[in-house]
C-alpha cells in the first residue's frame, strides 16, 4: 500500500513540475510568434500590456478563461467536451517520455521513442472527436481533413524514427543522445532530413501544411464551434505539440544535450528555440499547399524515400559494423 502511495505522489509531483514550465513556454511562444510575424511584416506586434507586451499572454489567457462558451444545441455533449480535453491531455502526456537533460525525464523507459510516437498518434482523436461532436458541417469537414493529414504524415514519421532507432541501436531516447556525441543524426540522415522537417510541420498542422485551418472555406477547421477555454485548450494543445516536436527534434536529430562549452538543458533550450523560430519563420514566408499536393507529398514521396532510406542506412551501418547493441 505504501508503495502505491509513493508512486502516486511521484507521478503527481512530476506532472506539476512538468506542467507549469510547459504553460509558460506555450504562453510566451504565442507572444514570440506575434512579435516575430510583426517584425517580418514591419509592424511592432503586441507592445502595450506591461513593458513591450510582456503581459500579453497572461491577459489573453485570462480573457479566454472568463469568456462565454457557446455550446451549440445540436452538439453531442460528451464528444464536444472530450475533444479539447483529449488534445491538451495528450499534449501534456507526450512530455513525460522525452528527456530534457541527462537523466532528467519523467519516465525513462526502454521504448521511449515508440511510446512518444504512439501518444502522438492518439492526438488525431482529439481533433476528430471535437470536429464530429460539434455537429457543424464545417467542423466535420475540418476534422476529417486534419485527421487524414495527420495519419498520412504519421507514416512518414514512423519511417524516420526507424532510421533513428537503427542509428541509435535502441528505443531509449537517452541512449540515442549518447550515440550522437560525436556526430549529430542530422548529418547521418542528411538525405531525408528535409523530409523530416516537412513531416514535423505537417504533424503539427502548421504552414505550409495548415490545411485544417483553411480560413477561406472552412473558417477555422475543426474548432469553429468552440469559444473561450474550449478553444484555449485546443490552442494550448497545438502549441504544446509544436514545442514538444521541437524538443524531440533537437534531442533525436541535433545532438540533444551534448555540448563542449555549454551542455545540458541550456543546449536543448537553444536548439529547440531555433526550431520553434523556424516554424514561425516558415509561417511568415511560405504559402499553403493544396490538399492533393499534401497527399502526394505524404504518400508518394515521404514514405517511399523514407522507407528506402531505412534499407540503405540499415544495410550500410550493419555491413560496416556500425550498429551498436
Amino acid at each position, binding site marked *: 500500500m505504501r508503495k502505491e502511495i509513493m*508512486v502516486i505522489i511521484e*507521478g*503527481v509531483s*512530476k*506532472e506539476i513540475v512538468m*506542467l507549469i514550465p510547459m504553460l509558460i513556454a506555450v504562453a510566451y511562444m504565442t507572444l514570440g510568434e506575434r512579435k516575430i510575424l510583426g517584425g517580418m511584416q514591419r509592424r511592432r506586434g503586441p507592445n502595450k500590456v506591461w513593458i513591450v507586451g510582456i503581459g500579453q499572454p497572461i491577459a489573453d489567457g485570462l480573457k479566454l*478563461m*472568463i469568456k*462565454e*462558451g*457557446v455550446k*451549440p*444545441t445540436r452538439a453531442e455533449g460528451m464528444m464536444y*467536451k472530450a475533444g479539447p*480535453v483529449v488534445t491538451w*491531455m495528450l499534449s501534456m*502526456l507526450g512530455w*513525460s517520455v522525452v528527456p530534457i537533460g541527462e537523466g532528467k525525464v*519523467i*519516465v525513462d*523507459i526502454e*521504448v521511449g521513442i515508440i*511510446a512518444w510516437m504512439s501518444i502522438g498518434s492518439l492526438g488525431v482523436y482529439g481533433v476528430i472527436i471535437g470536429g*464530429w461532436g460539434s455537429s*457543424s*458541417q*464545417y467542423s*466535420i*469537414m475540418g476534422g*476529417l*481533413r486534419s485527421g*487524414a493529414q495527420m*495519419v498520412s504524415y*504519421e*507514416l512518414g514519421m*514512423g519511417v524516420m524514427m*526507424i532510421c533513428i*532507432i537503427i542509428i541509435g*541501436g*535502441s*528505443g531509449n531516447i537517452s541512449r540515442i543522445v549518447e550515440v550522437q556525441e560525436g556526430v549529430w543524426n542530422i548529418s547521418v540522415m542528411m538525405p531525408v532530413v528535409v523530409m523530416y522537417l516537412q513531416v514535423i510541420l505537417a504533424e503539427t498542422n502548421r504552414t505550409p501544411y495548415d490545411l485544417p485551418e483553411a480560413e477561406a472555406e472552412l*473558417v477555422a477547421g475543426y474548432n469553429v*464551434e468552440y469559444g*473561450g*477555454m*474550449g478553444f484555449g*485548450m485546443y490552442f494550448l494543445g497545438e502549441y504544446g505539440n509544436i514545442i514538444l516536436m521541437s524538443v524531440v527534434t533537437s534531442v533525436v536529430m541535433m545532438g540533444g544535450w551534448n555540448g563542449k562549452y555549454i551542455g545540458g538543458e541550456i543546449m536543448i533550450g537553444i536548439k529547440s528555440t531555433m526550431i520553434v523560430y523556424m516554424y514561425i519563420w516558415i509561417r511568415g514566408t511560405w504559402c499553403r499547399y493544396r*490538399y492533393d499536393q499534401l*497527399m*502526394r507529398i505524404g504518400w*508518394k514521396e515521404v*514514405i*517511399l524515400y523514407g*522507407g528506402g532510406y*531505412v*534499407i540503405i542506412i*540499415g544495410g550500410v*551501418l*550493419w555491413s560496416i559494423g556500425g550498429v551498436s*547493441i
Partner: protein
Amino acid sequence: MREYEILLIVGVVSMLLVRIIWEIWELISKEKKDREKESAYECGFNPFMEERSGYEIRYYKVGIMYIIMDVEISYMYPWSIGMGEIGREGVIGGIIFMLILLIGYVYEWKKGGIEWE
C-alpha cells in the same frame, strides 16, 4: 513496471486537471442563452444542410490505407531495435520484408489507391 505506473498516473492526473479547468471555466463564465447564437455555425444564414449528411469516401480510403501501412511499419520497430543482435539472416530477412511491402505499395499506387483525385 514502476515507470509505466508513473506514466499511467501522469495521464490520469493530466486528464483530471484539464477536466477541472473546463469545469471552472463553465462555472465562472456566464452564458447568455440565445437561439441564434446556439444554432450551428453558418455564414449569416440559417443552417441549410443537415450535419453529418455524409462525407467523402476518400477520407475513409486514406484511413484504411493508413491502417495497413502503419501495421507494416510497426513490424519494423522490433527489427530496427534488435538490429545489432539478429545477425545476417535477420537483417536480410528484414530487408526482404520491406521489399514485399514495396510490392504492395506499388500495387496500391498503380491501382490509383493513393491518388487524391
